[in-house]
């Protein structure tokens, strides 16, 4: 019922607009708790204080992949169900996902220099995340170059579905290939291998960044709906004048 209600753009705006400031407030509170926890957390016995970079790097990686996951579901919504908000969601999620993927790459490099002795290696995990970032840039460029939003949506949806192949490659790259990047330490069948003193701030920061992602996505979707209204009005005006 709620999903059906949200399918109408006007109804979506009525629900999303008042929710955005509340979500923003929750995000600020979550970050205040997360940053406090991060500052107070002890150094890792191997990584030392650089473990604090993980409180940014892991959420960046998670949200980079979540962004593409959202776009993949939206692509199916565009191509299969023709959901009215699907391409709005996909277009709004692309720059946000790209930004978090960029954050993941930069913070990973800054962690790698003191820990591995290098900013970058062409290892399977790092390369597949770089490919994800380039895919994001490609989709953003596609949205910008095709003028008609419905044509752009279909093209972007196809690229998104093809690009979704990269998600399992990123996830399992550390198991399929011999990589410098360590294997999974949070989402494991036998539970996390991280000490709770570091795991708790990591999870709180991941939650805070996820709330930020949701807030930004709703706000960007609202902007996109307004942009489409302006476009429609412009076309209506042109047809009246013409």
């Amino acid at each position, binding site marked *: 019922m709620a999903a059906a209600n949200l399918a109408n*753009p*006007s109804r979506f705006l009525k629900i999303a607009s008042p929710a955005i400031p509340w979500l923003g407030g929750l995000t600020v509170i979550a970050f205040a708790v997360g940053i406090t926890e991060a500052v107070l957390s002890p150094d890792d016995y191997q990584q*030392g*204080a*650089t473990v*604090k*970079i993980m409180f*940014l*790097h892991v959420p*960046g990686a998670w949200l980079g992949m979540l962004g593409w996951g959202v776009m993949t579901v939206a692509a199916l919504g565009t191509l299969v169900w023709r959901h009215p908000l699907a391409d709005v969601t996909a277009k709004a999620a692309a*720059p*946000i996902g790209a*930004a*978090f993927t*960029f*954050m993941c790459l*930069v*913070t990973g490099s*800054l*962690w790698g*220099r*003191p820990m591995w002795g290098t900013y970058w290696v062409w290892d399977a995990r790092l390369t597949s995340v770089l490919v994800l970032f380039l895919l994001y840039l490609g989709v953003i460029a596609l949205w910008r170059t095709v003028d008609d939003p419905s044509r752009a949506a279909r093209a972007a949806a196809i690229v998104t579905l093809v690009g979704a192949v990269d998600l399992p490659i990123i996830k399992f790259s550390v198991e399929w290939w011999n990589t410098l990047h360590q294997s999974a330490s949070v989402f494991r069948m036998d539970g996390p291998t991280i000490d709770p003193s570091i795991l708790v701030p990591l999870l709180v920061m991941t939650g805070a960044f996820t709330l*930020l992602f949701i807030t*930004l996505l709703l*706000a*960007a979707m*609202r*902007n996109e*709906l*307004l*942009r*489409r*209204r*302006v476009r*429609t*009005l*412009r076309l*209506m*005006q042109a047809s*009246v004048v013409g």
Partner: protein
Amino acid sequence: MEDANHLVFIVAAYGAAAAVVAGLIAWVMLDYRAQSAKLAQFESRSVVRGIAGRAPIQEANEDA
């Protein structure tokens, strides 16, 4: 000495993340302001002209 060296990387990472987050928030807020201003402009213009005898915002809502 090693801790001091590592501090540079930690500060740089937090600075980069803050820049990314600030950039995203600024992008969303400025875009919202720009689109709202354009919509308000159309609204005021259409009130004066009465385009096609229909409330354009309502019609655009249906089209969006």
